[in-house]
């Protein structure tokens, strides 16, 4: 340890040495954090999109080609074959929301708060005569809890009695799914209220199922796909059975492809970081090679030199990784708190972005960076090791 510190003191002696080391650490940390943040953004997008979709759709959605249907015993039995964690009966219809001088096309969902919350994880408590609306819609129509919002609903086209009806509802709750379009369009109200307005009685037109507990973040989509296929086998072809991601499957697939493409582009950043490390090594070789050869002449062994190299590289790497982690955290905090970093949800689907990094991402990025830093610095070490001491002394001090 004492010997290591002595050599380090020699290497870092002079202001230039410390400055270039700090610059190397900063640039390497920055490069690692850029890679981490990019992967984190991709994973965050994927996670937010999926959890947002789950919050509105549960795990599986069942609709009928005939429109409305009754969730009878037979249908329930077929659904029970996959042992769902929750089942929610929903009526879903389109409407216009009117407030002040503005109107918006919305998707009204008639739900039973408890079962729907269990099936989706979206916490809803709506009293009769009340409604819950998406956060973007509330902002758009300048609504707050306690305000009234009028809905124009169609009642079919059988007779004059089926003309559109307009009714006001109290805003009981403002909810956020995390998906811009859903926060702009979704309106929830008690199923009985909506059934009465539409005159559909006990009929529904959507069943929402939770295959896994909605409170737990999904790591794997396979169980849901498996359950969907089982239901497909059990249920009549009249019913359409879709997984929650079906609506945005193209987007999730696009993120996957983009993640791969960006990981290729990020190699450029890795190369820049490697150049920085090589520049540091070249600096050390140019400025400090004579010191190293002299140290060898007065008793520094190759083993000690190797130890010094390894410890230095691991330290550079570890400090850079720690700094990179903090930089990523700062970026994530900025994404949530700085207004100029908020993304336009109407373009990017999500209302906000999040850096989400799991252990695999950290291990992959950190391990690859360690390999790179070792490769980039090995040349310098090998040059010192390969050259005979006396040749090095004569050349470096000549």
């Amino acid at each position: 340890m004492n010997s290591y510190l002595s050599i380090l003191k020699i290497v870092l002696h002079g202001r230039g040495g410390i400055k270039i080391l700090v610059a190397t650490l900063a640039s390497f940390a920055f490069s690692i954090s850029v890679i981490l943040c990019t992967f984190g953004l991709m994973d965050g997008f994927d996670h937010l999109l999926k959890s947002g979709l789950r919050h509105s759709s549960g795990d599986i959605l069942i609709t009928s080609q005939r429109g409305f249907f009754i969730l009878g015993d037979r249908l329930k039995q077929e659904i029970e074959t996959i042992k769902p964690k929750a089942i929610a009966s929903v009526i879903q219809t389109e409407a216009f929301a009117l407030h002040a001088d503005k109107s918006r096309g919305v998707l009204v969902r008639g739900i039973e708060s408890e079962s729907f919350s269990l099936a989706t994880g979206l916490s809803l408590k709506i009293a009769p005569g009340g409604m819950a609306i998406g956060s973007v819609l509330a902002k758009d129509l300048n609504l707050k809890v306690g305000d009234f919002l009028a809905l124009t609903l169609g009642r079919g086209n059988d007779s004059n009695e089926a003309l559109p009806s307009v009714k006001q509802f109290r805003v009981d709750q403002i909810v956020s799914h995390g998906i811009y379009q859903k926060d702009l369009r979704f309106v929830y109200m008690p199923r009985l209220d909506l059934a009465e307005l539409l005159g559909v009685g006990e009929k529904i037109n959507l069943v929402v199922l939770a295959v896994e507990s909605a409170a737990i973040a999904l790591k794997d989509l396979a169980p849901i796909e498996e359950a969907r296929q089982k239901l497909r086998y059990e249920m009549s072809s009249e019913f359409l059975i879709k997984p929650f991601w079906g609506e945005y499957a193209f987007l999730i697939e696009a993120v996957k492809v983009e993640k791969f493409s960006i990981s290729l582009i990020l190699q450029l950043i890795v190369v820049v970081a490697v150049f920085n490390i090589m520049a540091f090594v070249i600096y050390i070789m140019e400025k400090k090679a004579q010191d190293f050869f002299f140290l060898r002449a007065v008793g520094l062994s190759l083993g000690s030199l190797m130890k010094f190299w390894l410890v230095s590289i691991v330290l550079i790497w570890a400090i850079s990784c720690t700094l990179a982690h903090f930089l990523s955290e700062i970026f994530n905090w900025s994404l949530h708190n700085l207004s100029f970093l908020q993304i336009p949800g109407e373009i990017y689907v999500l209302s906000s972005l999040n850096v989400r990094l799991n252990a695999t991402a950290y291990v992959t990025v950190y391990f690859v960076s360690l390999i790179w830093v070792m490769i980039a610095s090995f040349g310098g070490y090998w040059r010192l090791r390969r050259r005979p001491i006396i040749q090095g002394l004569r050349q470096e001090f000549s």
Partner: protein
Amino acid sequence: MSLIQLTKVEKTFGKTKVLRGLNFSIEEHELVAIRGASGSGKSTLLYLLGGLDQPTSGQVIIDGKNLSDMGDEELALFRNATVGFVFQFHFLLPSMTCRDNILLPARIGGKDLKAIEKNCQVLADHLGVTHCLDKFPFEISGGEQQRINIIRALSLRPKILLCDEPTGNLDSVNTEKVATLLKNLAHDYGTTLLVVTHDDRVAAHFPRKIVIEDGQIIG
């Protein structure tokens, strides 16, 4: 047994044979000058004795140990503890003060710095370079640099002091001073001294002279 024993030592660089079957021995506490013209192989011989290089063939035995049989770790320890080097180009590291330069071998060897610094302070007083200790090498004269170099070489009280043209860069006054100094210090420290030189005035200070020409001992 002799402290230094060379048997049929040869050294080749590419196709050039620099040393051709050298045989000699040096006893403990001996003061020896190795003389020869430029390119005669005297410096190469010194580096072989100091474990900085290996012979192409033959044996270099120091204190009963064959240097060719030593691994890198053992050789590094030998260079640190058994020999001290005084080079023509003083090899004082420009980024460090003279004091740090002197303590460098002790730091590498993991020695007790306080005790060694105390000894070096006494030596610096004796050689009249105390005022140089906290200066950088470029801030002191050539003669002072060489005296710092000598203090560093003696800092760990080595058994053998190897000097490669120690007066090569000095004027005649300093040459005389350094030669006398080396002789006296070797005597005081009980060190075996080998000085490579092409200067007859320097060689004249030492009782034994080995003359090398074209890689062979001729006298």
